[in-house]
């Protein structure tokens, strides 16, 4: 018998870089908009901080990088709600982008797989 492999398609990766400590709020907003979860890395970033001059002290060098995988149909709504929650339109608050993903694999409950395959 062949091994069964189930993987997911039609997904996109939203990567959002914000100042350290502000990530949790954004993850909550993303989950409320339908995202299932987030992976968080710590990082350091430069850019706007140097160009703000004296005001740069208000921008934390240490960052959090949030990786959130969503379905392609969810991208826009999650993207907007993160942008609002993170106040990304304020200087120094962060940066966000979307990357298309080819496929992904994770635990999918067997009952869900059956139901989806029945539907065709």
């Amino acid at each position, binding site marked *: 018998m062949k091994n069964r492999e189930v993987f997911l398609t039609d997904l996109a990766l939203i990567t959002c870089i914000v100042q350290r400590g502000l990530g949790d709020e954004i993850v909550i907003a993303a989950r409320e908009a339908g995202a299932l979860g987030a992976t968080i890395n710590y990082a350091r970033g430069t850019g706007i901080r140097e160009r703000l001059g004296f005001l740069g*002290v208000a921008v934390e060098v240490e960052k959090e990088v949030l990786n959130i995988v969503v379905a392609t149909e969810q991208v826009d709504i999650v993207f907007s709600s993160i942008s609002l929650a993170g106040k990304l339109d304020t200087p120094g608050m962060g940066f966000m982008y979307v990357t298309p993903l080819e496929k992904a694999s994770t635990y999918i409950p067997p009952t869900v797989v059956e139901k989806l395959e029945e539907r065709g």
Partner: protein
Amino acid sequence: MEPEQRFRYGDFSREVSMDHHQISYNALAPKVEKDADGKAIPYVHPKVDLRAADVYNLVRPYIQVRFLEQFKAVVPLALYLVLFQIFMLSQAVEDSWVITGGMFAVIVGLMFFMEGLKLGLMPFGEAIGNTLPKKSPLPAVLGITFLLGVGVTFAEPAIGALKAAGAIVSVNSAPYLYTLLNDWAGTLVLVVGIGVGFAAVLGTMRFIYDWSLKPMIYCAMVPAFGLTFIALSDPELAKVLGLAWDSGAVTTGPVTVPLVLSLGIGIAGAAGSGESRLSGFGIITLASIFPVIGVLGLAIFVSTQTSPAEIIAAANAAQSLNANILPTWYETTPGAEVVGGLRSIVPLVLFLFVVMKVMLREPIKNAGLLAYGITLAILGMIIFNLGLTYGLAKLGGQSGGLVPAAFLAIETVEGSPLYGYAMGITLALVFVWFLGFGATLAEPALNALGATVQNLTQGVFKKSMLMYAVSFGVATGIAVGLTKIIFDLPLAWFLIPGYATAIVLTYFSSEEFVNIAWDSAGVTTGPITVPLVLAIGLSFGNAVGALEGFGILSMASIGPILAVLSTGIWVRYRARRAENMADTAEKTGVPTT
């Protein structure tokens, strides 16, 4: 029939709710010019011009987060004191506006100071810790570590509280204590600093050679106890014990801990060791024992130089002289606070700067940012010192002076004693117990320690368990310390059995718990708790007519050590019993539940 039309819901909701614009990044990206030879000219990014609204949006969260952090630490404590005073003692708060202003100064001062510490002093500590061991031999490195230990003690905000306490001590009842806090105040801080310096050196060597903390505790306790016994043999010297053992708790504050630790960890990392999970612990323990030895040593030295009678005579003479001379501007507030703030930060910064430039020949990076940080640290220290005088010390002193009215007749309080003797004392003890419990639980350093400990012990020692154990220990310690002041008992009665028990428990505990327990005491006595508790203790002591009001902090240090060590032993016992039960169940084939 019309063909069916399908829309994605996402497109629909976007179209309805948002006004979208797209801009090509190509339109924004800078064009790199080429010179005549075809070489690219490095592009210089222009400064961003911000609208006022943007500046506001940028600066508001920056200030808000930092302000709230200190606000949360200060306000509940102050409210507790005020509410207790109003409802239990039915006394209005005197100078309430001055105190409110002072408390605000404490919050703003700490906010500035912590940010300045992070931006202006920590980068030095990290840079020196990383590069110093590569460029200098170990003895030189340890020498610098020692000097840094001395320097950070002068910069510690709570040290100011110790100096301020000198004014309250009466020369007639405790002459040595008076002369230590007044005539020898500079030397006192210096010996405390030397103690911290030695602790930093030994702690760093411990990182490098991976020594166990247990024998170091035993070795440090021998001279501490020895000098305590010598001091006990002279009834005049015995009054210094409270100050000596309290000084340990005062030193381990928000400057010493991160700066010395970052240096020590940097050195250990460069020496190729420090992989131990416990590296980082231990310095705080030693930094709270060695100053005790230093202060006791100084007290004994002073006692060989002068006699109590001479001190009293000199103090009285000075007092009658000073009655005619107005104190110079730098001896009165606010001048004294400004000078004090400058004097505590500037030498430390100069020392760090000299090490960077002369010893390491390292360029100073981000000079503007460093200057900003140092300015903030100095400003913060000055504002904090002002807040200490007008807010924390004043409020603490007021409650400390009024709480005894619960069980004693106090002149200033009408109808005192307000409650029966036993009831009043119980009320006073319950008051300080909850004060200690709440203040410790709110200390941000404790939260951080709890998280570290939970990771270290793989979740066996829960974060909340540590936080409650430490808070319980501090609270009980403070209550015991207050009992000592109420009944005017010798501190040694509590100190010697307390530390003896701690040593016995240390012997039976595992290395991990020893590290955690002995450090927990120093970590939790921060820049708000220390001045408040000192002020309450001193004026409480004055009100009940005790000889001196020191000793509460030392009790608050030994309390958590005992609490955490016993909790650690209990946790280990429980874990082992669960293991044993699982083993026997496996052998007999009985399924465990």
